[in-house]
């Protein structure tokens, strides 16, 4: 009785409130630049971006579940597909693909060829260690944690570093058995 997940987020994206991507792109860029100024260490900026993404992810999952009508996915495989096909489309307006599954289905890659976060961006030589889009890995990690999947998300390819696509490796560490959903205190 696997739930029927939508195969694409096109219809959902067409129905949500949308804004010029420029505002989003430039705002994210200005945040990254300000973080670099304030924290100085590129490593620390990577960490903070991931943390910010995580915080966003744990909130965004509710909106995602509500708008996509995805009932909770049964397995990790289906979940990864839904993130790539529906999640990315619904929020960023772009589609990602899932590849490179390992044998036991606990590790895969999400590949993104078009990414509004990096429109106009060119990394200066002083920022070569920066994972500019690190917020995305945090969002995925945070969102998955809210549906009981502990993951580790790492960048394998990055177009800002000269690769031909963005590739995020998502590794399932632990799947916490789900309890019946209930509201805890309110």
């Amino acid at each position, binding site marked *: 009785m696997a739930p029927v997940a939508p195969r694409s987020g096109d219809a959902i994206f067409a129905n949500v409130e949308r804004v010029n991507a420029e505002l989003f792109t430039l705002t994210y860029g*200005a945040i990254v630049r300000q973080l670099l100024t304030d924290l100085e260490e590129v490593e620390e900026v990577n960490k903070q971006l991931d943390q910010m993404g995580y915080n966003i992810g744990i909130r965004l999952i509710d909106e995602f579940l509500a708008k996509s009508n995805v009932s909770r996915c049964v397995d990790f495989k289906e979940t990864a597909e839904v993130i790539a096909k529906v999640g990315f489309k619904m929020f960023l307006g772009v589609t990602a693909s899932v590849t490179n599954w390992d044998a036991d289905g606990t590790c895969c890659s999400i590949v993104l060829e078009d990414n509004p976060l990096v429109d106009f*961006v060119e990394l200066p030589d002083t920022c070569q260690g920066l994972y500019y889009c690190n917020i995305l890995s945090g969002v995925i990690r945070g969102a998955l944690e809210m549906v009981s999947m502990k993951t580790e998300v790492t960048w394998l390819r990055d177009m800002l570093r000269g690769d031909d696509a963005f590739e995020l490796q998502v590794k399932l560490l632990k799947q916490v058995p789900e309890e019946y959903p209930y509201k805890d205190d309110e």
Partner: protein
Amino acid sequence: MIVCVAVVGHQNNPLYIQSFTDADDALKLHHIVHCSLDVIDEKVNNPKKSGPTLNETFLGLLYPTENYKVYGYLTNTKVKFILVTTDLDVKDADVRNYFRSFHAAYVDAVSNPFHVPGKKITSKTFAERVTNIVKSFGFSSAA
């Protein structure tokens, strides 16, 4: 043929200058660009002289020298674009098209979060786009 393009900031600080000629006349071209800045200032500060082009970003022909024609463009953000060409018979529409594409490339370059306003434009993407725009100059007058 376009021999030189330049971007100059609002305090007449050079932000980008690139010549496209094999001859060793970079210095001369830089001088021409420099002189054209005064012409722009005069045009903009004495709007009566510029007549119908009042407040238009495209400033038209700034001045002809013996071998070159120099065109100017001033954005709302007080940034000047200069174009130096050796063509003596240039279509107005071509020059306008050129500046429109150039402006779009410039806007994208300064949208890079790591670009510091008022500092030189070092973007490779920008340099490539400019080269392409310069190459295609004069071939798109249909638009």
